[in-house]
């Protein structure tokens, strides 16, 4: 019974191969999109390791000696005073193949060591190693570049290329340069506050910016995108399953009449669906892998641009994303198929397919959808006021679903409006016919709306991001060079040298506000017109910068303003300075910390020993200045930041982001176009009885075909147009709600109507392509086929 029942159920697909294809391809495509995004994310995250390591190696807080070399004894003295620090010597060595950067660390205390070991490290053979015989650690590529060397070596893929790490004992063998220490890394678990007396040490805070944030934002958006694409795919599956159940009602009734228990029937249907899901999921995973492989170079370039570090372009076949992809397919199929399964369960044995009742059902469905949709929008309104990232995402979901459910109702209203206003006859029939189709077409149209909205939303977001960011970089980094000053005693000669070379300079004094609950950096600036003219601001009191230079107030970054709700006109309490007036708030993208700008004199009042940390240099005629500075002051490569390079890098980041989002855009639209195609094909049988009378009244099949295309185009156009505001709403949520919640800064939203037009046109194109096979069939249909419709009517 079970076997024959299963065979009977499956026989349907032989007669309806398109439906089969629709389910499998729909599921496969949505799984593919989702898993492609997952694969990209997983691979990119894996490649963070290197950048994170770079941060851990070079970004930690450190102690440096101020006016004499840092001695090993200083290290021991600090340790014996309870300071948890770890010694580091940095320099270059020649291991036989040219100079290479060497970082010598204490293998017993450096925070990086657990990562260096790696998981594949054999846990010793029972004897402790001699530290002087421990290996040098480097990236495999670096080791390859070193060529054959006699030292024991261990590959550490997490290390940046071009860097060799070794224990200090090993380093002493490699080079004679290791006499003193370069600096001491301050370990995290440190509760000491005062240096032992007589130690001329300076605590240098690690870099305050974290490029990881921008990348996280990027991943967040990719994931949201993947999820939306997946939902669009599910719409196809749901509509197809529904259709398949509908068309098999007769067969199911027969099976039931032959004595198959209801539970067996439902189980068989569920098993069939599950098999389809696994099959489609597997296809989707393979597809996803290829899509990811295609997109990954772009993503990698994006990330490497953000990090300034090379990211290997190898796609990792990580089982975790494959597993989540398959799980998503199964869960998605369950969601999409559950209502149909319930339908099968409730199937009355004797009732025939009641096509006439369908409009009633549509009404009921519409009422129910209207209710759900209003409920969702109400929830969205509440979510808007919950300051939590999860609420932000829920808000996005509620908005999209609520809006999309409203779509058929809205479209019906529009159509009824036109229906009552056009001349009776053909025109009125076209509108009425379109409206009649809405019920059946609503699901694929919703999918299309989602796709259009997602596209517009994400594109608006990335474009706004690009515009804001590039403008910001152009304004904020308007000088040609940014020179980091290594030590305090380097500052004055550097300024003098620049002055001699008649370069225009803007020195920047920096100190950290120790008393603040959140890391807060103070900047002391000199009085130049640059700030008033160029510094990008979000809000500012009149003559803000002039007042700042006179010491009458401070400017704060957006992160501080938002976190403490202090804006222009409020005042902020600062140690030794008392209440300072906030003169304005400026955007500070990608910085997780708070920042306060004040005049140099004000900074010196708070922190008398604030150090000169940065000099912005306008090169003027002397284009060789960068090279000269490097040579004269022996500055390391990272000490000078070239503005052109910075801008080119960030532009490249965005261009790569666009490649990725554009591809995903086309794919999502493609998926929804496919949904339309399957719906049109599935509707073919139902369409004929509706078209035959019109043909009988004298309309040529050619005209019918044209009308079919127009109808499809009209539906798609209407849907896409209605989806545009949803897309903008989505972009607003992404920019103003989730981004603010996630990163503490808000991105201004810019409107790009040409991109809306492009998306709407693309959606229309998808609709035209989707209805083309039906229109072609209609164009070529024999009169006999149309006549048969009447012969079937009783």
């Amino acid at each position, binding site marked *: 019974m079970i076997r024959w029942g299963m065979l009977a159920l499956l026989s349907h697909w032989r007669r309806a191969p398109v439906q089969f294809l629709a389910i499998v391809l729909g599921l496969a495509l949505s799984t593919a999109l989702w898993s492609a995004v997952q694969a990209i994310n997983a691979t990119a995250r894996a490649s963070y390791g290197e950048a994170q390591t770079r941060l851990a190696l070079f970004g930690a807080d450190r102690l440096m000696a101020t006016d004499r070399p840092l001695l*090993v*004894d200083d*290290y*021991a003295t600090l*340790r*014996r*005073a*309870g300071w*948890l620090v770890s010694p580091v010597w940095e320099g270059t060595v020649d291991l036989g193949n040219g100079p290479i950067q060497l970082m010598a660390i*204490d*293998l*017993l*205390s450096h*925070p990086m*060591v*657990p990562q260096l*070991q790696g998981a594949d*490290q054999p*846990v*010793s*053979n*029972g*004897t*402790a*190693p*001699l*530290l*002087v015989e421990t290996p040098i650690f480097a990236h495999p590529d670096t080791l390859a570049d070193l060529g054959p060397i006699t030292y024991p070596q261990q590959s550490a893929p997490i290390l940046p290329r071009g860097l060799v790490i070794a*224990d*200090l*004992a090993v*380093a*002493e*063998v490699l080079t004679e340069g*290791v006499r003193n220490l370069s600096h001491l890394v301050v370990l995290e*678990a440190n509760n000491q506050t005062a240096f032992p007396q007589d130690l001329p040490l300076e605590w240098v805070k690690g870099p305050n910016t974290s490029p990881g944030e921008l990348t996280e934002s990027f991943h967040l958006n990719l994931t949201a995108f993947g999820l939306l694409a997946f939902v669009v795919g599910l719409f196809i599956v749901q509509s197809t399953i529904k259709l398949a159940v509908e068309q098999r009602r007769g067969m199911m009734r027969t099976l039931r009449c032959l004595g198959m228990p209801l539970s067996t029937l439902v189980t068989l249907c569920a098993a069939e669906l599950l098999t389809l899901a696994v099959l489609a999921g597997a296809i989707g995973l393979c597809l996803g892998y290829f899509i990811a492989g295609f997109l990954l170079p772009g993503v990698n370039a994006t990330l490497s641009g953000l990090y300034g570090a090379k990211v290997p372009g190898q796609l990792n076949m990580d089982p975790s994303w494959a597993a989540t992809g398959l799980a998503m397919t199964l869960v998605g199929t369950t969601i999409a198929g559950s209502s149909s399964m319930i339908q099968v369960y409730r199937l009355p044995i004797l009732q025939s397919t009641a096509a006439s009742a369908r409009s009633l059902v549509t009404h009921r469905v519409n009422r129910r959808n209207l209710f759900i949709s209003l409920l969702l929008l109400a929830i969205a309104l509440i979510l808007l006021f919950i300051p939590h990232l999860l609420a932000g995402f829920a808000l996005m979901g509620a908005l999209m679903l609520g809006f999309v459910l409203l779509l058929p109702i809205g479209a019906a209203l529009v159509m009824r409006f036109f229906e009552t206003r056009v001349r009776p006859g053909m025109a009125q029939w076209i509108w009425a016919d379109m409206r009649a189709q809405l019920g059946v077409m609503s699901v694929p149209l919703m999918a299309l709306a989602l796709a259009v909205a997602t596209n517009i939303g994400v594109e608006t977001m990335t474009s706004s991001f690009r515009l804001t960011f590039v403008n910001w970089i152009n304004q904020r980094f308007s000088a040609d060079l940014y020179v980091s000053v290594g030590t305090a005693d380097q500052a004055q000669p550097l300024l003098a040298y620049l002055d001699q070379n008649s370069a225009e300079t803007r020195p920047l004094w920096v100190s950290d506000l120790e008393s603040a609950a959140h890391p807060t950096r103070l900047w002391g600036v000199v009085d130049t017109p640059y700030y008033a003219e160029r510094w990008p601001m979000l809000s500012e009191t009149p003559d803000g910068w002039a007042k700042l230079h006179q010491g009458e107030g401070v400017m704060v970054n957006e992160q501080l303003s938002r976190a403490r709700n202090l804006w222009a006109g409020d005042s902020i309490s600062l140690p030794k300075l008392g209440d300072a007036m906030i003169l304005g708030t400026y955007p500070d993208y990608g910085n997780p910390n708070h920042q306060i700008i004040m005049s140099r004199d004000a900074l010196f009042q708070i922190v008398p020993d604030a150090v000169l940390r940065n000099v912005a240099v306008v090169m003027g005629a002397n284009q060789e200045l960068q090279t000269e500075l490097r040579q004269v002051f022996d500055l390391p490569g990272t000490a000078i930041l070239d503005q052109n390079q910075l801008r080119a890098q960030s532009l490249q980041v965005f261009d790569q982001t666009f490649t990725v989002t554009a591809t995903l855009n086309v794919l999502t639209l493609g998926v929804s176009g496919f949904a339309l195609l399957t719906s049109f094909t599935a509707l073919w049988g139902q369409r004929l009885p509706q078209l035959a009378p019109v043909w009988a009244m004298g309309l040529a099949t050619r005209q019918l075909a044209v009308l079919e295309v127009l109808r499809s185009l009209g539906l798609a156009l209407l849907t896409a147009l209605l989806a545009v505001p949803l897309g903008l709403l989505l972009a607003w949520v992404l920019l103003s709600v989730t981004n603010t919640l996630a990163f503490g800064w808000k991105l201004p939203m810019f409107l790009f109507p040409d991109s809306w037009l492009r998306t709407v046109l693309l959606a229309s194109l998808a609709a035209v392509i989707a209805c083309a096979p039906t229109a072609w069939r209609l164009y070529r249909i024999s009169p006999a086929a149309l006549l048969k419709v009447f012969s079937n009517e009783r």
Partner: protein
Amino acid sequence: MSVRLLFAMLLALLPGSGFAQGYAGLGQKAGDGFQNPDPTLAPAFPQDHGPHPDFRIEWWYVTANLQDADGQDYGIQWTLFRSAVRPYETDGWDSPQYWLAHAALTTPETHQVAEKLSRGGIGQAGVSVDPFAAWIDDWHMHGADASLDALQLSANGDDFSYDLQLTATGPLVLQGENGYSVKSQSGQASYYYSQPHFEVTGVVSPDGSAIPVTGQAWLDREWSSQPLDEGQSGWDWFSLRFEDGTKLMGFLLRGTSGVYSSGTWIDQTGQAFPLPVGAFAAKPLRFESAVSDDIPTTWHVKLPDRGVDIQVTAINPNAWMATSFSYWEGPVQVTGSHSGKGYLEMTGYGP
């Protein structure tokens, strides 16, 4: 955390991997130029308070039983281990000597542990003879002079610390035969002496609050190049102070060829009487540790020659040292023919 990982990597002295070489690698053959203890050469002071780089392993080990004004029990442990890869010391990063330290503060309910690791040669850890000082980072045991008569002892962890003054009220005790302590039938031995007569005052801070305490402490000094036989996998070591002023140090060394027991009886005057091999007997009575169910937390200890028939019970059964090599170490209560307090150390058990 990283210290722990590292030490595991560097020394791999975990009991599981060390079955053929005794607990914590202590059964490793001397060789490679390392010295072995010589029964004809007794320890000489003060120089033997200092380190012996040409021996593979060495420790400065203090345990103390303390009480606060309310009579609440505390136990502290302060241990500095030296472990050498080569039998020499250098002045610099290439030192082949490792220094490892453990500190613990135990109450009947809590057991707080910390660990430190350093190399020799750079001054971060070490021991100096005159004045006596043993240290690693800011943990230290300082003497006023070259003797061990008055010591200042301090250590701290993430959430505990202690700072104690130790004053000796009796002479040093040479364990075994004149400080030559045999550890197996096949003759493995170590140099071993103790100062079991410390009176203690000071402050312990189990949770940030400083609690004044008083009590007694016991210092052990031991060094060797292969103190254990290769087949020996762990030991149970007792240091007990009885209320009548006598003291007992006894240990069981468990191995493939059975149990080897030895010890020292110390009378009221501080005179030491080495026990014949096998005279000291101890049997586990109860296993009540939440850490692992193979850890004996109550023992029946007998020394018939001295009329000792006692029950030794852990004050905190969960005094597990979850350090790079892990073991049980904590204060104990003595009842039976004698009553008193002391410390128990058990290795080769646990998860």
